[in-house]
C-alpha cells in the first residue's frame, strides 16, 4: 500500500497539473484566435465615426488622398494607402474614441476589446475630453484650438514629459489616460486597444495633413492662467453659481453626469465615475489646465462664451468636488474620497430639496 499508492497518486497529480496548464494554453490560443477573428470582421461604426471617416474618405487602396486637404488647398496630397486590415484598425480605433465602453455596440466586450477592464467607472469615454472624436472643429471646419486633438498629439509624441520623467511615447500617454482620467488600469502597450487608437490618430494626422514635430494650436489644452484674468481671485463660490447656471443642465447639479437608458449622455465631473485626483485635469490650486479645457470646449455648442475668470472659477469649484483618489495617494486618501463621494451627494441633495422644495432639486442621475 505504502509503496503503490504514491506512484498512482503522483501520476494523477502530474496529469492534473499538466491538464490545467494545457487548459490555460488552450484558453490562450482560443483568445488569440478570437482576437484574430475580430480583427478580420467588418466593423460596425458608431454614427459619429461613420460620418467622420466618410468625410475623410477612408477606403482601402494603394494611395490615400485626403478630401479635407483637397477641399482646403485644392492640391491632391497623395499618401500611402491603407489595406483592408488597416482600414478596420482605424475604424475600430475611431469607435474606441467615440464610445470606449461600447454603449452603442451590439456586443460591447468584443467590439471594444473588452475595454471596460481598464476603466473603473461607467462613464469614461475618450470623446469626453477629446471631443469631436479626437478631432474637434469649429463651425468653419478649422481645428479647435486647445481641443486635445489626437492627430496633433501624435505628431508631437515622444517629447520629454516632466510628470513621468520620460520621453513619452504616444502609447504610454494613452495608458495615463486609462489610469487617471478614466481612474482605471493600464492596458499592455501592444494591446489592440492601444494600437487601434494609434492607427486612428495616425489616420487623422494624414487626413488633416499635419507634419511631424510641428506644434498645432489644437494640440493639448490652451491653458488659462490667473494673469489672464482681471485678477479678482479664483473663487469657488462664484464657480458654484456658474456651474449651477451653465454646467448643471448637462453634468447634473452635483456634477454626477447624465445617463439615460444606460447610455452616458454627459459624463460625470465628480463622484465615482469622474477622473481621479491625480488626473492632469485636477491640480486643484494652481491648475491652468481644467480652466483652459472649459474655456475652449465648454459648454458644447457655446464654446467661448465663458470668460477666463469664469473658467477658472468653475475649474476651481469642480476640482473641489469629491472624486476618486489617485493610485499613488494611498488607502487613507482613497477611503476619505470614497466617504465623501458616497455621503456628500445624498446629503446635499436632501438639504437642497428641503430648503427649496419648489425647485426641481436636480435633473440627471
Amino acid at each position, binding site marked *: 500500500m505504502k509503496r503503490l499508492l504514491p506512484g498512482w497518486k503522483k501520476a494523477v497529480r502530474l496529469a492534473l497539473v499538466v491538464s490545467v496548464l494545457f487548459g490555460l494554453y488552450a484558453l490562450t490560443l482560443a483568445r488569440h484566435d478570437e482576437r484574430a477573428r475580430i480583427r478580420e470582421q467588418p466593423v460596425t461604426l458608431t454614427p459619429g465615426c461613420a460620418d467622420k471617416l466618410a468625410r475623410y474618405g477612408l477606403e482601402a487602396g494603394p494611395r*490615400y488622398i485626403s478630401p479635407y486637404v483637397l477641399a482646403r488647398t485644392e492640391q491632391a*496630397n*497623395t*499618401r*500611402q*494607402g*491603407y*489595406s*483592408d*486590415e*488597416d482600414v478596420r*484598425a482605424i475604424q475600430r480605433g475611431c469607435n474606441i474614441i467615440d464610445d470606449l465602453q461600447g454603449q452603442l455596440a451590439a456586443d460591447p466586450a468584443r467590439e471594444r476589446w473588452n475595454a471596460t477592464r481598464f476603466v473603473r467607472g461607467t462613464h469614461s469615454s475618450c470623446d469626453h475630453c477629446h471631443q469631436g472624436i479626437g478631432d474637434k472643429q469649429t463651425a468653419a471646419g478649422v481645428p479647435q484650438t486647445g481641443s486635445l486633438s489626437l492627430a496633433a498629439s*501624435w*505628431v508631437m*509624441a*515622444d*517629447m*520629454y514629459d516632466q510628470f513621468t520623467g520620460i*520621453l513619452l*511615447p504616444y502609447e504610454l500617454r494613452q495608458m495615463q489616460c486609462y489610469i487617471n482620467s478614466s481612474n482605471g488600469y493600464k492596458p499592455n*502597450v*501592444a494591446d489592440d486597444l492601444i*494600437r487601434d487608437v*494609434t*492607427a486612428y490618430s*495616425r*489616420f487623422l*494626422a*494624414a487626413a488633416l*495633413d*499635419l*507634419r*511631424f*514635430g*510641428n506644434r498645432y494650436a489644437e494640440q493639448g489644452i490652451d491653458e488659462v492662467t490667473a494673469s489672464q484674468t482681471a485678477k479678482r481671485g479664483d473663487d469657488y463660490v462664484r464657480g458654484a453659481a456658474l456651474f449651477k447656471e451653465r454646467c448643471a443642465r448637462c453634468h447634473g447639479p452635483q456634477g454626477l453626469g447624465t445617463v439615460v437608458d444606460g447610455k452616458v449622455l454627459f459624463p460625470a465631473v465628480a463622484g465615482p465615475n469622474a477622473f481621479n485626483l491625480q488626473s492632469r485635469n485636477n491640480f486643484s490650486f494652481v491648475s491652468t489646465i481644467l480652466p483652459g479645457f472649459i474655456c475652449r470646449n465648454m459648454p458644447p455648442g457655446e464654446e467661448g462664451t465663458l470668460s477666463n475668470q469664469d473658467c477658472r472659477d468653475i475649474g476651481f469649484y469642480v476640482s473641489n468636488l469629491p472624486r476618486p483618489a489617485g493610485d499613488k495617494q494611498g488607502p487613507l486618501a482613497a477611503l476619505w474620497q470614497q466617504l465623501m463621494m458616497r455621503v456628500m451627494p445624498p446629503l446635499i441633495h436632501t438639504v437642497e430639496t428641503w430648503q427649496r422644495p419648489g425647485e426641481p432639486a436636480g435633473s440627471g442621475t
Partner: protein
Amino acid sequence: MTGMQPDAALAAMRDRQRAARQARRVVVTRGALAAAAVVGFVLWANFGSGRPVFSPHGTPETGWDAFRETYGVDTFGRDGYFVRAIQNGYNLVHHTHKYAWRFTRKGALDHPNACIDCHSAEALAYAFAASDRFDARLGRRVSFEEHVMRCYATHLDGFVPTTYDPAVRDIRIFARMVAHHLQLGEGALERTP
C-alpha cells in the same frame, strides 16, 4: 561535559569565544569590503569611468556635429532629453555594432554592420511616416518598432530588444526628428516632393 576538568572547560570556552570574535570580525570585514566595493564602483562609474553607458551625455561620434547642423536638430534645443535620444539614435544608426552590441552579433569587421549601410536617414523617416501598416507576408500590422526589432534579429544576426529598449526607442526618435526636418506628414511617399 561533566567529565571534563575545570581547566579544560575554561580553555574550551575561551576557544569558543575567540572563534566567535574571529567569525564576527570576518563578517564585519566582508560587509565593509562589499559596501566599499559598491560605493567605489558607483563613484568610479559616475565620475571616473568615462564610459558612455554610465553617462547621461551622448558620445559625440564623427559626423554628429555636421548631421546636427544639416538636419536642424537644434530646433529641439541644444541639449535635453529629446536631443540626447536623437544623438543616441544617430550613434545607433551609424555604429550599430558598437551601441547596440547586446542585440547584434556583427562586430567592427563584419559588413554590413550598421542600419545606415542599408537605410539612409531619409529612408528611416519615410519608413516611420508609413509604418503601422498591414504586412501581407507576415499577415499582421507591423509597427516601426517591430521593423527595427526584426532588423536586429535578421540582418544584424542578433537578438530582439523589447519595444521599450532605448536601442529601439532612439531609432524611432531619430526617424521622427528627420521626418520633422523633411516636414513629412503621415504616410508620406518617398517620391512625393
